[in-house]
């Protein structure tokens, strides 16, 4: 618990909920008749409404990106290191919006919500939403908040895909897109990892075809396994090695199959904690949204053609030890942006943490991120 909330924190924040009664047609062909989005905002929207920044969350993220919900809160929001007064996304200059995506399990309409058509929980009947659907729903939230154009749409990993999608689907509504530790599409290896995670969940006897709520149970073991495999892919060999090496919990081998290595203990702890706080159906849905993402697909596989519509400036950032979405994937994206003649800056940050590096404020990452955001803020002031 933070005894005193630090000066560079946005402080205590309260989530808000917005209800949408206009049906949302989805890529899968189904329609969400009505839905709610829960979101948080930090900083002040300026009079011209030009300083708004949208934060898009990744697989396990939510609307709580920065600050604390109460003084008793043990942990700040998931991207508190980058959002706050004087931080890269400086809340003294920007009005920051972060929402929980549709299909999520932290307040926005998702599998844990009541299906208005049946009066029961959606569960596995919640339609599969894609990155494009998220962006459409986010655009409606922007309308409600009176934001015609984002100064920046920012996201890491799956969040970066949303930032990219924004620039293609609403080109006139995005001034800058920051695509961090992301990729224009998953590789077969990425999809394979996701499939293992899904299989872990769906083969848990407590899964009950996704209707575990009715059975008063949760597929905790499956979700834990899914998180364990995912977690490894977010970390680099170096990061795991540095943190645990081959350290044992006991003084010597036990010659059995219980937890003996520190790394095993850590994975179990992470998996268990996650399985208590996350919804298995949401996990399935989010991994599918990752798999399906491929904006070039509608353009015969040509990413430059897909990018032709974009009007924004891009910042693309990758991390040297990220093997989940490696620098090569970001370079592929940058190459396409250059081919399409788009304004793009690309930086590969040398960081040992693997994919998770996008959440860690290493000095160079912070410097680059801050410099780019500062440039945006300064440009806004010149216009005014």
């Amino acid at each position, binding site marked *: 618990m933070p005894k005193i909330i630090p000066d560079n924190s946005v402080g205590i924040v309260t989530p808000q909920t917005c209800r949408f009664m206009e049906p949302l047609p989805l890529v899968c062909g189904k329609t969400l008749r009505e839905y709610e989005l829960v979101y948080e905002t930090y900083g002040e929207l300026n009079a011209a409404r030009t300083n708004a920044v949208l934060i898009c969350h990744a697989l396990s993220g939510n609307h709580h990106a920065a600050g604390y919900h109460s003084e008793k809160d043990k942990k700040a929001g998931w991207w508190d290191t980058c959002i706050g007064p004087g931080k890269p996304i400086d809340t003294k200059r920007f009005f920051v919006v972060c929402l929980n995506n549709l299909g999520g399990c932290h307040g926005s309409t998702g599998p844990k919500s009541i299906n208005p058509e049946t009066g029961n929980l959606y569960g596995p009947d919640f339609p599969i939403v894609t990155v494009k659907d998220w962006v459409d729903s986010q655009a409606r939230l922007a309308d409600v908040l009176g934001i015609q154009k984002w100064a920046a749409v920012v996201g890491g990993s799956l969040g970066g895909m949303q930032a990219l999608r924004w620039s293609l689907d609403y080109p006139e509504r995005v001034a800058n897109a920051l695509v961090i530790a992301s990729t224009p599409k998953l590789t077969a290896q990425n999809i394979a990892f996701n499939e293992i995670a899904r299989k872990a969940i769906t083969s848990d006897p407590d899964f009950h075809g996704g209707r575990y709520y009715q059975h008063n149970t949760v597929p905790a073991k499956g979700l834990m396994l899914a998180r364990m495999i995912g977690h490894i892919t977010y970390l680099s060999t170096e990061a795991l090695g540095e943190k645990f090496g081959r350290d044992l919990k006991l003084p010597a081998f036990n010659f059995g199959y219980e937890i003996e290595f520190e790394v095993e203990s850590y994975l179990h702890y992470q998996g268990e904690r996650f399985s208590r706080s996350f919804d298995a159906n949401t996990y399935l849905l989010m991994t599918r949204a990752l798999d399906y993402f491929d904006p070039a697909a509608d353009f015969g596989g040509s990413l430059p053609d897909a990018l032709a519509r974009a009007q924004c*400036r891009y*910042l693309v950032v990758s991390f040297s030890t990220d093997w989940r979405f490696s620098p090569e994937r970001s*370079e592929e994206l*940058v*190459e396409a942006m*250059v*081919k399409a*003649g788009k*304004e*793009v*800056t*690309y*930086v*590969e940050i040398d960081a040992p943490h693997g994919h998770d590096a996008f959440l860690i404020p290493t000095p*160079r990452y912070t*410097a*680059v991120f801050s*410099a*780019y955001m*500062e*440039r945006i803020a300064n*440009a806004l002031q010149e216009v005014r």
Partner: protein
Amino acid sequence: MRADLKVITPWVAPNSSVLDLGCGDGTLLAYLQEHKGVRGYGLEIGEEQITECIRKGVNVIQQDLDAKGLQNFADQQFDTVIMTQALQAVRRPDVMLDEMLRLGRQGIVTFPNFGHWRCRFYLILRGMMPMSKTLPYRWYDTPNIHLCTFKDFEALCREKNIRILSREVVDADFEQSSFARMWPNLLAEFAVYRIGRK
């Protein structure tokens, strides 16, 4: 204003596209963006310089020319490809010149003249690899692994059928001096070449 900008700027057409190889802190591109309305990218690997480019609003792409090459850019994608004070530091300057003219309709190159009289005298009198204000490194730690004289460069251009469209020779402060023009290969410290395909 950085001295070499004075020579380079008139050679870049207004509202054209530019690729700056080894763009440093982005001074040249920022200047060309502001005064000539050019669009373009700078390639750089220096971390501080990249951040400085971002501050200046220059599109900078982190890319190691020696390691990755320029395969990610398309033929004739740019009006002008510029390389200031870096040709002598790449692994294969000859390949780099080919690449510059593959990507751009014209190339602009600047490099220090190893045939300058000071270098010659240094070598003759001291018998050691020349060091000077413009070449401050020692032989073993210099990034300038392919130093050449104007004559060397022009011979390479002839060999490669590269046309020298313009040449400005300048002194150490990048001032155009009639003294340097008298006998460039001996008296000029730097040259700025504008090259194209025959």
